């Protein structure tokens, strides 16, 4: 007789609102000073700016590479 494999139970996802708490409320709840919250805001902005730059460079380099491949293929 074939051994039965364990099966995954049927999942019931948890429904949440998905809304974000305003930054000042969150900082207050976490006990973070407004000065520290501003520093963290700036840090995130800088990380996202650097990431956008990195992606733009990657995309430009890919476009250049594809352009060269197409022209050399003619």
């Amino acid at each position, binding site marked *: 007789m074939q051994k039965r494999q364990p099966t995954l139970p049927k999942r*019931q996802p*948890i429904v*949440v*609102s*998905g809304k974000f708490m305003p930054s000042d409320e969150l900082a207050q709840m*976490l006990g973070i000073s407004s000065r520290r919250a501003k520093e963290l805001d700036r840090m995130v902005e800088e*990380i996202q700016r650097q990431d956008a730059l990195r992606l733009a460079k990657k995309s430009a380099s890919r476009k250049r590479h594809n352009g060269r491949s197409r022209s050399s293929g003619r």
Partner: protein
Amino acid sequence: MAAAGPVAVEPQSGAVFLNFPYDRQFVPLYLAYIAGVCSFGLTPRVALELPGGARRLDRIVELILGCRYSFHDLSRVELDLRRPGTPRMNMPFELGLTVMASYHNPKHHTWCVFEKDYRRALKSLGDLAGSDVYSHDGRPAGVLREIANALVAEHRQPEMRQLLAVYHDVETGVPTVLKKRGAKSCFEAAVFRDLVYTAQKAATTRVGTA
């Protein structure tokens, strides 16, 4: 040991109690839990936030009762080979406390179990048969994927690329946060709070505004 008695705590609607090990190897998954939970507009809570004073167990119970949801990661329930070789029991113990609390008040608490491989949970904790076990493969992307499987956002459901972007922002911010706090580990209360704020800030721009 005498019980401390029932603790009357109203759960915070968006609070998620995270039950996982505090060790260096777990850091990538720890950051993934923070990023994932914050991307759904929820607020992660952990036992390391608890101040000293009252008995640790009482404070943990109070924290669990104060959260509407809890995620329990059992992927590191294994034998610690340092002498004396002992299994890590904190995570299953806190899961047990949570299950009991949710039986008493099912409308006030919903819990989920996360594992590297769901078969591990069924083998080590057969009582979980029939319960939801989310398998994250021991990878941050797996944690994010499974959080997205466990939660449905009414407002807007974050996509996987957005969850990964929030994770990237949090992970990149870790050295700055540690330096600023003069901390050596991510598992310090002040660092945790900074990471939660960072994750929510990142999620607001990466996933969408309220």
